[in-house]
């Protein structure tokens, strides 16, 4: 029992990061009908900006993260307005190529643009230092403050996003676009604005995720997060916005348990387990079966 609780405590930070990255991936998948491989690199860009502001201009951390998120928001908006919107009738794999082109461009531009930072190989700013130790049912547990801080930020942000999806006009528009783009256009929904804001919000959320990673800055820092995000999306099921979040709860728990068995093979074990689960539930754990008309 105490092992299980400790595993859950260990996966707080990963859950925060994966859930923020995944909700962006799902938003883009539901409104633009493609998988966005550039999501991670937009986040890395925002993370560089926020690290720069926090470490070198001495901004307070929340303000620095907000600045980074705002930059990523604008980048996401620009990408949709100038590139994705022009190719709205492309096939999903052609759109994938566009996002891959963006990935190539930004991966190579970022080290050049921020060469003054990369010379020092800095870390992302710590959200909080130290660990908390406590006793429960007679056994010791510990949790990092970084994990708790990331978790609380993620819960607040996810709460805001889900409230927005449920109660605002933008959210209604997203749900309508996700269910049928053409019909929602006919009903007077400006799907272009809906899609643009989905890209922008996805960029901003992923930036917060990248900033709470707590690793060395680098263009590839979000690579694994992104792949786990895609898998979590399929694992949870894409028919609702909430199901992928449950997918992102399962993956970190698998990961913290696999680390106990072998830290080298943890990722391989998690990937295999997730693949087996997806094969067992092809529509996702909480997805509905889609019925095709012929």
């Amino acid at each position, binding site marked *: 029992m105490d092992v299980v609780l400790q595993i859950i405590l260990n996966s707080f930070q990963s859950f925060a990061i994966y859930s923020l990255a995944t909700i962006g991936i799902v938003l883009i998948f539901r409104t633009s009908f493609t998988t966005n491989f550039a999501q991670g690199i937009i986040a890395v860009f925002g993370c560089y900006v926020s690290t720069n502001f926090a470490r070198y201009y001495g901004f307070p951390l929340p303000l620095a993260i907000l600045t980074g998120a705002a930059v990523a928001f604008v980048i996401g908006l620009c990408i949709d307005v100038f590139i994705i919107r022009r190719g709205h009738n492309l096939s999903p794999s052609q759109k994938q190529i566009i996002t*891959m*082109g963006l990935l190539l461009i930004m991966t*190579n531009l970022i080290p050049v643009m921020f060469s003054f930072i990369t010379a020092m190989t800095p870390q992302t700013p710590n959200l909080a230092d130290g660990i908390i130790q406590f006793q429960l049912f007679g056994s010791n547990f510990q949790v990092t403050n970084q994990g708790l801080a990331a978790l609380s930020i993620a819960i607040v942000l996810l709460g805001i996003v889900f409230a927005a999806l449920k109660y605002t006009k933008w959210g209604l528009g997203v749900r309508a676009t996700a269910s049928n783009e053409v019909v929602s256009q006919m009903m007077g929904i400006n799907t272009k604005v809906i899609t643009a804001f989905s890209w922008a919000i996805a960029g901003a959320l992923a930036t917060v995720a990248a900033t709470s990673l707590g690793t060395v800055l680098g263009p590839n820092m979000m*690579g694994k997060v992104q792949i786990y995000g895609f898998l979590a999306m399929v694992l949870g099921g894409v028919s609702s916005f909430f199901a992928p979040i449950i997918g992102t709860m399962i993956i970190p728990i698998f990961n913290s348990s696999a680390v106990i068995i072998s830290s080298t093979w943890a990722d391989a074990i998690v990937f295999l387990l997730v693949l087996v689960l997806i094969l067992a539930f092809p529509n996702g754990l909480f997805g509905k079966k889609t019925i*095709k008309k012929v």
Partner: protein
Amino acid sequence: MIKTKVSHLKRDRLLAVTKHPYFAFLAFGAAMMILMFLSSIGILQYSFAASLTFTLIYSMVAIGFSYLLGYAGLASLGTAGFVGLGAYIASFMMQTGVQQGIIPFEIPYVFILIIALLVSVGLGVVVGFISLRIEGIFLAIVTLGLSEVLYQLFLNWIPITGGPNGMTVLRFPVIFGDLRLDRLSMMLIVAAFMTLLLILTYNLGKSQTGRAMLAMKNSTSAAQAMGISLLKYRLLAFVLATAYAGLAGALLMGFSRYTDPYSWTLMFSLQILAACIFGGTRSLFGIIFGTFIVLGIVPMFLQNVEYLRNNSWLFNVIIGVVLILIVLFYRGGVMQLFRDIRKFFTSIRRRLWVRKYGND
């Protein structure tokens, strides 16, 4: 009078030869072989021929991938893992296995290729069964996950794969006994395989198999109603794609004798996807040209430009911009480009004709 008729006949016969579908493939293979041969005498730089060989190997992967994307309409992002598997199997047979005493003697290269092919076919069958349960973009994500598992294997199974430092094989593979291949013969083998695969792909695409896959791509339900077995053709598509990829991996290992896990990430799968889409997904020479744009143009030509060599980040930025521009404005890929060039020339010829003879 009679003489001209004979010469006409000769010309017709020659034309008939050039019109034969195999002619283009054989001519392409011969041209590649000549370029490789020129580099071995020293007329061309060796680095040029080496990058040409790499481009050929990658275009084999892309042509195999076209069975999935172009014919069967299946999305896959597992290409990198499949190629890497072939490469590491070859490295195991060529060096690691012999050193560790698992394999008693150095296996001839032919058998290495066959074993790499067999393992790849096995993997293809597994992925094919997965594709029966999951479709569309979700299949792409699942194959991406599978490729990640293989990547973790390459990265962490250090006694076999060499881990993050990569695996260097010291000597070229043996033909039999002590007779070894060398650089030129490896290049020629790659060109020969390329020609063979082109002919095979052309024939399969035109045969009942290719048409059944096309039917499946357009509508699975209609194809099933016509009596096409989804199981059979999806398995076949994946088996062909992984077999091409495994073969390419084994050839790559025989030629370059070096591989590391970081070559086989999502980026490589996406590059192959891009090459395939540029080529118009089914046109063989289009795909080769697409591979050249995505993977070949930097090492073959841009590397020689002084300014670009000093700012190597520019390469990938340029390629990224080109990728986006092509997808946005040239949806038909290279084939549309060829068509437009032909149209441009006919319009010029027409304009010249008008200037010469008047508008009537």
